[in-house]
């Protein structure tokens, strides 16, 4: 990690205004903002870890847990909600034995809920990695996951 961060730091000025772009690049590189990464950024930019975390949590784009190999996102937007998105999420939580926002201990799967993918016509929607699965039901969702195990 140290080297990857160092490479990112090289490209930036050591000042407050670099914060957001450093955060974005670190997330892009490492997939998330780990406590260790934030500590390093704090050291580089001379801003406290709490402050950086405060800024980062203000934006929805940042995540703070290591994503799984397969990122699963279940939509709970209005259309999906009406068509049973909730039940799909529950099924996934049961199947993977983790809560939304969590990751399996082997870092194979992580689970998140999101609000609308813009594919409402296909509701309810579940996205695995970059692949969008429409017209889900709990059973089919389970099968998709099992196929990845």
């Amino acid at each position, binding site marked *: 990690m140290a080297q990857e961060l160092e490479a990112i730091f090289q490209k930036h000025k050591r000042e407050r205004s670099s914060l957001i772009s450093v955060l974005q690049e670190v997330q892009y590189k490492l997939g998330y903002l780990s406590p260790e990464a934030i500590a390093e950024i704090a050291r580089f930019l001379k801003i406290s*870890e*709490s402050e950086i975390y405060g800024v980062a949590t203000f934006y929805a784009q940042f995540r703070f847990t290591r994503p799984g190999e397969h990122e699963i996102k279940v939509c709970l937007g209005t259309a999906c909600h009406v068509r049973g998105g909730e039940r799909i999420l529950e099924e996934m939580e049961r199947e993977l034995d983790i809560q939304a926002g969590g990751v399996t201990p082997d870092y194979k799967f992580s689970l998140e809920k999101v609000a609308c993918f813009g594919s409402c016509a296909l509701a309810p929607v579940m996205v695995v990695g970059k692949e969008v699965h429409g017209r889900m039901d709990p059973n089919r969702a389970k099968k998709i996951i099992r196929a990845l195990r």
Partner: protein
Amino acid sequence: MDKMKLTIDGREVSVRRGAKVLEAAQEADIYIPTLCNHPELEPYGGCRMCLVEIEKMRGFPPACSTPAAEGMVVKTVTPELTKLRQSVLELLLTEHPHPCLTCHRKELCGPFDVCLRSVSVTERCVVCPKNKRCQLKDVARYIGLDEVSLPYTSRGLPIHTEDPCYDRDYDLCILCGRCVRVCDEVVGASALAFVHRGSQALVGTAFGQPLTESGCVFCGACVEACPTGTLMEKDGRWAGLPDRTITTICNYCGVGCQLRLAIKDNRILRVHPDPQGPSNKGLACSKGKFGLDFVHHPDRLTKPLIKRDGKFQEATWEEALSLVVQRLSQYEGDSFAMVTSAKATNEDNYVMQKFARETMGTNNVDHCARLCHAPTVAGLAQTLGSGAMTNSIADLAQAKTILVIGSNTTATHPVIGFQVRRLARKEQANLLVADPREIDLVRDSTLWLRQRSGTDVALLMGMARVILDEGLADMDFVRERCENFEAFQESLQAFDLETVSQTTGIPAQDIARAARLYATQKPSAILYAMGITQHSHGTDNVMASSNLALLTGNIGVPGAGVNPLRGHSNVQGACDMGGLPNVYPGYQSVGNPEARAKFEAGWGCSLPDKPGLTLMEMWDAALDGRLKAVYLVGENPVLSDADASHVEKALKNLEFLVVQDIFLTETARLADVVLPAATFAEKDGTFTNTERRVQRLRIAVLSPGEARPDWLITCQIAQRMGAMGFDFQNPEEIMEEIARLTPSYGGISYPRLESGGLQWPCPTPDHPGTPILHVGRFTRGKGWLAPLRYRPSEELPDKEYPLVLTTARLAHHFHTGTMTRKAKGLAQLRNEELAEVNPQDAERLGIQSGDAIYVASRRGRVTARARVTEDIPFGEVAMSFHFAETATNMLTNPALDPLSKMPEFKVCAVKVGKAT
């Protein structure tokens, strides 16, 4: 000052230009409800509670952030405003437990009353630790909200109790941001931040880590600033309201923070730094805010102890005093020595040195100032004429450049450290940090000069050379106010940039840049501490600092000066009071016949004219039998002095040792008689802080058992020995005598101190005190430029002892830990030595963080756990001496500075390895 007039609620108000509407209202005692505003912080305008109506202005501007203007007409109470404020408050209270806030029978209710309003989470004010001190409640009552139409929904957040010192119950948080802002703007730690957003928004740390992991320095400023019960001290959390509050002065470092002690049932319930405190303005550090519970520690000495057959037995005062008197009368003259205390008051110290000189007939008086600022006293007396901080703490705000050299200010003098950091962060001043260790201040510095330990003379003289070579010196100042310039200039020959860079290990361009900033961005202030003085060339270091100031005219003006930061709460006072072997109170030399005649007349006795022994000389004299009896007050040389095993041997060799202290210290264990003393919280008196400010201590609690104030014990011994002039009824009478005999304290009296402290010199009762020394004229006449030569430290690393040990301090502990380790919160923050080792050295030695290691020098060997860190440079090791289990001063080198007799604490050669 320039004032302007405006009308508030029909009343004419005049206020300083630049003030906000809120300040104008407060000036006229008109209450405007506020929540997010705080006097020490920038206006924030977040809570919308302070809305007012202003003629010719649209809407309802917030009073806290709207500038007042000439002729403005403001209304603070109108039906619209009340409605507006009620709805803002109502919204706020949907997330804060409010049953009690809106209850009509709140005056009648008590904690265990059954209440139908009580919701399932029984968070009611009557069970809140902040009850009756809460600002939200004040605001709610003023606004008069009778009902909140929306239900209260608890966020059900866990209470953070994982940290020492204070708890955080964010269910009570109203997100006013005062904690976040005070931590960022004032303290500069930024340990707290707003995290998450929208309805999830909260105050917290990165990843919800404990505060101990988040850079918090436990200064408690956030707790003080919080208007609600969210942030609460652990101690006395449920103890309710105090019986009374006493204003006094902190007993730890020389900043001299004014503290308000909340007292209940003869105990210190909580400590509140006083916003009126001249040196601290509402701030404190972990030691002052959370470290005063040692006062109530069960190990306090409560009865005199007499050692019989090697064991201590409790005795009555009568027995103990008569034994002391009987034994001491055998040692009148130079076989006796008195060690006074930098933790005791001026009055205590005055009486002690008077006892030694008048009653015992010896000038053998010294105290631990020998081990901190003796080189300052010697060096600055020679160059400027007065060995004290030239300027005031508040003065720093006017500095354009601040050079911090050999002072880990945020650890040793935190409240001054916060101020320096704040100025650097706001870019009001350039901050130059010269320190081998990567101390906290480095993070906010303009330039970090990482000199090798012990090469300060080279660095400072190198800077002086650059200043002269580049024509940046203030030659008018040098011509008019200084002397010895030619000899000084001559000695600069040896300090060309290249040599200096090689000696110090600092890149030449950094030295030059530092010199230019210091000389051109004026006024420039120098702050220094033990990193300058604790060397065998400590006096040279001090004089090198004053050279720099003299050469650039940075003296006698606000925001400049040479400012030694003094360690103990009253080390300045102990020196002022003549707790030194060569001077009477007020630095009047014992060798000066006039001064001696004055004290002989004042005390009605004849006095010895030969200066006495210094501290380290006392131990030598004890070993060879010249010194036979010692009366030692409030010191712990067995841990604090260099080459500690030597000191212990010396003390054991005495025929009679009396120790007067609050705990049975490592030193007290060696005594024949131990006398129980009162703490700072149990006595009246005065301390003189590092900026020469004499401030009043007041009795806050009664002493446990039979402990007595130091001045009283010494007076009782003296009286029993038949001495005259010790029949003081109280410390005030002692101060009257001090003022009579000490010109610089001539105008100081208790009635005057009631309205804040006074900075000496204060020669007459109508003199306002002296915030800045040497204005227009130096105390010694002309400033003396000192020609210097670089002398390496006495003991340099070699094959056998390849590393340099430098001693350091931790923020949460003080000196030998006698008091701080008995403070619960502080002991939780850190309770063991961690020797700092550079990663490269660690790798070579096969050491990892947490490993048990030994550190050995030619004099001794100690063990500790290691902390591997870049903070310490390659080839060096840093340790504190706060922990008796790791008695670092067993290792240090007693090589003395020739002028001041300061031992070389900061540099000695050691070897390090894994402990087996």
